[in-house]
């Protein structure tokens, strides 16, 4: 593939931590941009100190998840608080098209690295600042992490069956996946805007704002009808049967979603039209919703005989949406679609060794992503100093000694 990638020639400077910021930068890094991540061995970012580590031994280059969130970037350790470090930072700003950050809201401004400060250095700089709720405001407070974002944005409220309390999906911070998608789009629109007008801009992206759009119908149900739409768990107001159903084995479930009359007919065909399916209680969607608990008991009696794979295959072949409630092992080791689509790609990191990485879930026919592994900490110090900043070798070594490159 010798086609140049979409962001060929685009330069991104990021000072990011954890997931929200780094994930945003990865889209640019994996589609051709040169992305330099500013780091520090004195104040390593969370990604560098998160387990699991290679062989369970901590180390800045031994964290596997760092590579999941920073694939394809360059690493430059810089002391941002020291005068000559600041000089270097501003030189890099001049070099960049985009500056990206997700430090605590207000921090960069306090350090005189805010938009107005950067604009003085480079008039058309694009500054992308990502956070849970925005850079300023009455509730920005001391910040938060994934669960704060899921709570604030209205997500957690729905993560439950109606009779239960809300539940957390383990460590998965859903907004840290969704926020970056919108931040990257905003960045691309800004690059395009600059191409047309010559102007840069300041982007303040709050995870909350796009996430509320995910709840669009429920929001309108409130603003129009005054109703607070309750959680329905794995059921759905427009379908029945629609839920997770028990299968053979421990903690094994399938999912079935019957929306149309046609799908109900096909579903009954697969079951062999047992007597219960002929009852008026189940003949229309409305009737099935009215008797949903009883319906689900009957369906469970059927699914319990089979593995989730068997249920999925039988129903899908008959045109009924059905699937498996998969865990990580199912997806990584067994799922045939994952394998056929090369969704998990083999990567190699000099310290971590071989590992799997989930590629982006979209394939561009002419310019597919080019995903490289994450950098060792400070791996590109010499490159940045000599190639980008034009330092001599002596100047580079001096910078290390004076702890500017650190």
């Amino acid at each position, binding site marked *: 593939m010798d086609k140049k990638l*979409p*962001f060929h020639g685009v330069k991104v400077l990021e000072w990011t931590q954890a997931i929200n910021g780094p994930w945003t930068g990865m*889209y640019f890094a994996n589609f051709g941009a040169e992305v330099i991540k500013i780091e520090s061995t004195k104040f390593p970012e969370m990604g560098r100190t998160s387990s*699991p580590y290679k062989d369970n031994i901590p180390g800045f280059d031994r964290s*596997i998840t760092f590579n999941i969130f920073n694939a394809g970037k360059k690493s430059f350790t810089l002391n941002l608080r020291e005068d000559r470090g600041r000089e270097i930072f501003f030189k890099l700003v001049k070099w960049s098209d985009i500056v990206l950050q997700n430090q605590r809201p207000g921090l960069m401004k306090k350090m005189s690295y805010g938009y107005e400060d950067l604009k003085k250095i480079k008039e058309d700089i694009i500054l992308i600042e990502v956070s849970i*709720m925005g850079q300023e*405001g*009455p509730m920005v407070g001391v910040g938060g992490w994934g*669960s*704060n974002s899921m*709570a*604030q944005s209205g997500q957690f409220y729905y993560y*439950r*069956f109606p009779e*239960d309390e809300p*539940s*957390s*999906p*383990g460590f*998965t911070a*859903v907004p840290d*996946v969704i926020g970056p998608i919108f931040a990257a*789009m*905003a960045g691309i629109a800004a*690059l395009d805007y600059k191409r047309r007008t010559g102007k840069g*801009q300041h982007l303040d*992206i709050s995870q*909350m*704002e796009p996430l*509320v*759009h995910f709840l669009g*119908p*429920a*929001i309108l149900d*409130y603003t129009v009808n005054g109703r*607070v*739409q309750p959680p329905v*768990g*794995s059921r759905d*107001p427009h379908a029945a049967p*629609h839920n997770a159903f028990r299968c053979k084995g421990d903690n094994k479930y399938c999912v079935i979603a019957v*929306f149309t009359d046609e799908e109900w007919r096909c579903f009954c065909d697969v079951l062999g039209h047992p007597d219960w399916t002929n009852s008026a209680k189940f003949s229309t969607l409305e009737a099935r919703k009215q008797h949903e608990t009883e319906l689900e008991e009957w369906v469970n009696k059927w699914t319990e005989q089979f593995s989730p794979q068997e249920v999925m295959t039988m129903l899908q072949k008959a045109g009924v949406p059905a699937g498996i*409630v*998969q*865990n*990580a092992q199912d*997806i990584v080791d067994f799922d*045939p*679609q*994952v394998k056929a689509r090369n969704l*998990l790609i083999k990567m190699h990191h000099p310290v971590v060794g071989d*590992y*799997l990485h*989930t590629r*982006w879930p*979209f394939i*561009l*026919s*002419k*310019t597919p992503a080019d995903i490289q592994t994450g950098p060792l900490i400070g791996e590109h110090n010499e490159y940045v100093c000599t190639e980008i900043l034009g330092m001599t070798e002596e100047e580079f070594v001096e910078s290390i000694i004076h702890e500017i490159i650190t």
Partner: protein
Amino acid sequence: MLNGLRALDLTTEMGFFCGKVLAQFGVDVIKIEKPGGDTARRFGPFWHDEDDPEKSLYWFAYNESKRGITLDIETGEGQDILKKLILKSDFMIESFPVGYLDKLGLGYRELSKINPRLIMTAITPYGQTGPFKDYKATDLIAMAGGGIMSLTGRPGGLPCRLSPDHAYCLTGANAALATMIAYYYRTWSGEGQYIDTSLFECAVRENYNEVPVSWKFGRRNSGRNGTLMFRYNVFTRTIWPCKDGHVTWTLFAGTIGASENKNLTQWLEEEGLHEEIKDIDWDKFGFDGITQEKIDGIERPIFELFKRHTKKELEEESLRRGLRISAINDVKDLYENRQLYFRKYWKTIEHPELSEQIIYPGQLFISSEMNAEPRHRGPLIGEHNDQIYKDELGFNDSTLADLKNKGVI
């Protein structure tokens, strides 16, 4: 924002969100529905519960800022019309089954010959290739396949999908991003291309902590822990009941944890609840080797404290005292949220046919130069037929009447 661009949107509910996002970025998105309108117009909630295809709040929410025409692409005339429209379009978004458009002579191979700059975004349940390519998937099926469902729900309870139609929105957002990446490529190369994305793959990518890391390196499948999280070999609570609902707060160690926990202890003292934890040195506190008993002892008074207060009170105190408590907002709480209000988030959109204005979610982000707000309401059925067919394509009234009679539009 994005300037002078047009998208043809031939999606069903699994793909609505893509065009909606692009429309909010300034693209002229034209929703193409079969005559009579999308089936999803029958999904509630409805405006004042009036079950009407032009009063579906579900449909309006996910198709806001688009224009709309009707067209039956299974007819020869319909296919010709689509090709005419493709000439003037930058993007085409579709969510048809694999191979459907090819069979109609409207696949990427054909359409890119007509317009080499076209960017075609195909959204399917499982992708254009693979053993499941002809399978059907809805939001539930995708979220189950992706793995997050196995992590969500009460311990010992059923697996729970996330917010309603979460996979549709997630995939729509991913598709919009992919479309914009392809667009940026085109700005300097002049070339369009084809984008293949799916509900299932987006759901798997969202499950970043488990796949592949947790399984491959931790050799474990995390289970459903409900309101708790399993960390450092103990369960810590992350979702807490309060007087009028729930909040989230999590016990941390380290420097951030230390300052927060000291502030929290201070508050517990003021409420006479700090007996069990007053002797803990938070600067030294760590999770290494900690017992469940110790954790429970710390969380007991906090549980009691939270139960005494409402969501609003807990948030106020949290801000005042430097804590990280967040209310678990329902849509009413969201609407009253001070931060969204400060950001001037809520947008009033005209619905003249309903004789009212409706309040919608607003900007996707704030920019010093660009406007990322919703533009206008989604279309009524065939609302822009005249504008597109007469004004742009130059059909006269009798041609239009003819097409309508034949069911082409």
